């Protein structure tokens, strides 16, 4: 970065501030959990990208460094899909045991 010109940091600040206000406004939108959730995830990723690209100067660095930075995001996203089946299995087991418990008590 030392050899590059500094970007307009105040412009990035205003983008981040405006995106934060939009995020808070999205919470009150009546579009349902999936649409609101998708919008919020998109806005968060956009804000994180602005911080990484301009404040952390990733835009001016070697592309390989960017790939190193993005890898944890890919790992975390994959991890959600790895954990979800296990979580659903545990939730189903808990539901089943709740259904069995009243049936067992009604016999006495």
């Amino acid at each position: 970065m030392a050899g590059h010109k500094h970007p307009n940091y105040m412009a990035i600040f205003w983008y981040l501030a405006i995106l934060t206000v939009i995020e808070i406004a999205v919470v009150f939108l009546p579009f349902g959990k999936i649409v609101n959730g998708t919008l919020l995830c998109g806005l968060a990723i956009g804000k994180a990208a602005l911080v990484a690209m301009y404040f952390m100067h990733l835009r001016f660095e070697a592309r390989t460094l960017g790939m190193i930075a993005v890898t944890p995001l890919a790992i975390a996203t994959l991890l959600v899909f790895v954990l979800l089946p296990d979580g659903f299995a545990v939730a189903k087991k808990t539901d089943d045991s709740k259904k069995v418990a009243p049936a067992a008590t009604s016999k006495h």
Partner: protein
Amino acid sequence: MSQALTVHGAAVEPAESPLTPESWGKLGMWMFLAGDAVGFGTLLAGYGAMRATSADWPNPFEVLGINLTAAMTFLLICSSVTMVKALEWLSRGDRSRARMFLAFTALGGAIFVGLQAYEWTHLIHRGLHINGNPWGATLFGTSFFIITGFHGLHVSAGVLYLLWAISVVARRPDPRASYNFVEITGLYWHFVDLVWIMVFTFMYLL
């Protein structure tokens, strides 16, 4: 050896160029941050999976409130700006302004930690504990304190790191001699800001 490679350049691969020509320290910080990001990513992915599969997960927006945390988010964004401004002034050779902006950044971080302590105290009084809460799933409190606590520790460490950077800038006679050190400090600080953007969205807004 390198001469030999140049002479027979057509037959061998071109020499690798370093990812961060400025310093190995910068590459080291990027590697540390990538590892730390996996830590935060794992915590947030675990949080997402627990929440998606829980039948009685409380609505965080209603339980935690967002007024204070929205202000904390804005504060961290401001501190990121003061951090890059410190670097900008350092590149222009103005050591005193660079130190002033580094001090603003550290102050922003310290206020953030203070507000987080206030938020925790308030929520604990309302019944949110690491092993239970009056609103639903026990893991709601567990995940809240672990994730926000892990981030708060990073901010606290960042404040100490910034104080160290201020002393480095003060000790080195040539302002440009501390540019690389401050840039590496900034990478850590912006990472802490970036993680909070994710924590704020996933733990408070969603």
